[in-house]
């Protein structure tokens, strides 16, 4: 991790590989983020409405949906979706490059594989994850609006006023901090698992080795996101 950070700081800086990775990790994940964000918001609206209706406080629906999304579900679910879509691909790509001596070839050409392979992905993760999380949050809030306001006739004013009065800057900050850390964490775990495939227990040889390592990278990254989610919440609250 430190080597990668050092390589990221050290010139020369090349923008094109970073932009390409932002497209891969960020833009190409947009559909899945929109889809999951919308349905997460809708289910929050549905569950929230029935729960709050028992206490006669459906006016809090907007705040409940927004807080759940901004503080927890947005960063966590967006990260889990990106792990499934891009993290697995990063691990498999780098792992296959390791297995077929392409990383050795880079080293023999005096091209730093950290700088060339890992750094653009890390920087892209850092930039793309907060953006994807924000999109997830906004779409989720609209999903909650569709269910709460359009389906159950909660007043639109109450929905947005509840949100406005309950969400403070600290909540948004917490969501952003989480998404930045998750972006760094998921790309680093998946890329490092692929990069050090040859050091895996059992050798990580062949197609089976790559698939096994990719599975373990996805599991490790997902678990790490949940553990770090708790730790960041505990620190920031």
């Amino acid at each position, binding site marked *: 991790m430190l080597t990668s950070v050092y390589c990221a700081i050290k010139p020369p800086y090349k923008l094109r590989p970073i932009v390409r990775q932002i497209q891969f990790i960020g833009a190409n994940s947009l559909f899945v983020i929109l889809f999951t964000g919308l349905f997460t918001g809708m289910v929050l609206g549905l569950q929230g409405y029935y729960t709050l209706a028992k206490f006669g406080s459906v006016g809090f629906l907007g705040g409940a949906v927004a807080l759940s999304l901004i503080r927890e579900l947005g960063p966590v679910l967006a990260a889990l979706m990106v792990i499934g879509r891009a993290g697995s691909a990063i691990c498999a790509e780098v792992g296959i490059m390791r297995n077929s001596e392409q990383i050795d070839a880079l080293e*023999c*050409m005096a091209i*730093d594989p950290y700088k060339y392979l890992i750094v653009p992905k890390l920087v892209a993760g850092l930039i793309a994850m907060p953006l994807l999380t924000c999109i997830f949050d906004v779409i989720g809030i609209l999903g909650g609006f569709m269910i709460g306001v359009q389906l159950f006739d909660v007043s639109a004013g109450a929905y947005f006023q509840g949100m406005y009065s309950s969400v403070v800057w600290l909540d948004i900050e917490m969501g952003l901090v989480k998404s930045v850390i998750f972006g760094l964490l998921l790309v680093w775990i998946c890329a490092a698992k692929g990069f050090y495939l040859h050091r895996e227990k059992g050798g990580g040889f062949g197609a089976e080795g790559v698939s096994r390592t990719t599975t373990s990278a996805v599991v490790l990254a997902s678990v790490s996101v949940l553990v770090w989610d708790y730790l960041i919440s505990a620190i920031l609250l």
Partner: protein
Amino acid sequence: MTTDNEIVIELDQVEKSFNGQKVLDGVSLQVRAGTTTVIVGASGQGKSVILKHMLGLMTPDAGRVEVFGQDLQRASKRKLREIRSYFGVLFQNVALFDSMTVYDNIALPLRERTHDDEKSIRRNVEEKLALMGLEGHEAKFPAQLSGGMQKRVGLARALVLNPKVVFFDEPTTGLDVSKSNEIYRLFFETQARLNYTAVIVSHDVPKIFKLSDYVALMAKGQLQGCMSPEAFQLSDNPLIRSFVVETMGPIYSSETEESLLYEAL
């Protein structure tokens, strides 16, 4: 070729084990500038392991590997990268970047290691493509090429930065006779033009002897001799003799020896 040439690579009593199995057991070798050194031997003897030590991809358990007078084990990452900037490598499985086109594969070292603009990179790549007879294939991906063409792309990539030392790991494995001859012809032409030092790992005996200045046999964890191909074929070393007989048939050092054999028959 003279023995006075500067020593470019030196291995001194290099040892390496994998899972308790000793693959290199005191390997020593000197590679001199401008020469072609060929390491031959049966499969699984550790020839490629020697090459990986020279490239700094593996570190020895004991002994020393020096390239351009610098101990690779003690070299900093920056120094190692500087040493490698003089290298060109043709891997056994070619190790082309399979998500890139032929053009991008050859252009990569230029893009990453030089400040050349795209126009001069194109000129350089096209020159190498022409040298390797690969015109018209620049937009293809490695998987769309035959084995021989992949080797030629690998060779073009290895030579694109005019290296001082080029390593060839089994350059003709898996190729038919005419494709092998093509690779050897390209090797001969490019070495004459660029005057690089070559280290070749091969078991294509006796053909590889024609290209070599020095031949060494990897057997029993050690390099047996490093001598001219003629001396190698007539060596008294039982391991070299057995290898030569096995791969080339009996070679007789004198008429007396030959007649003795006939008498025995």
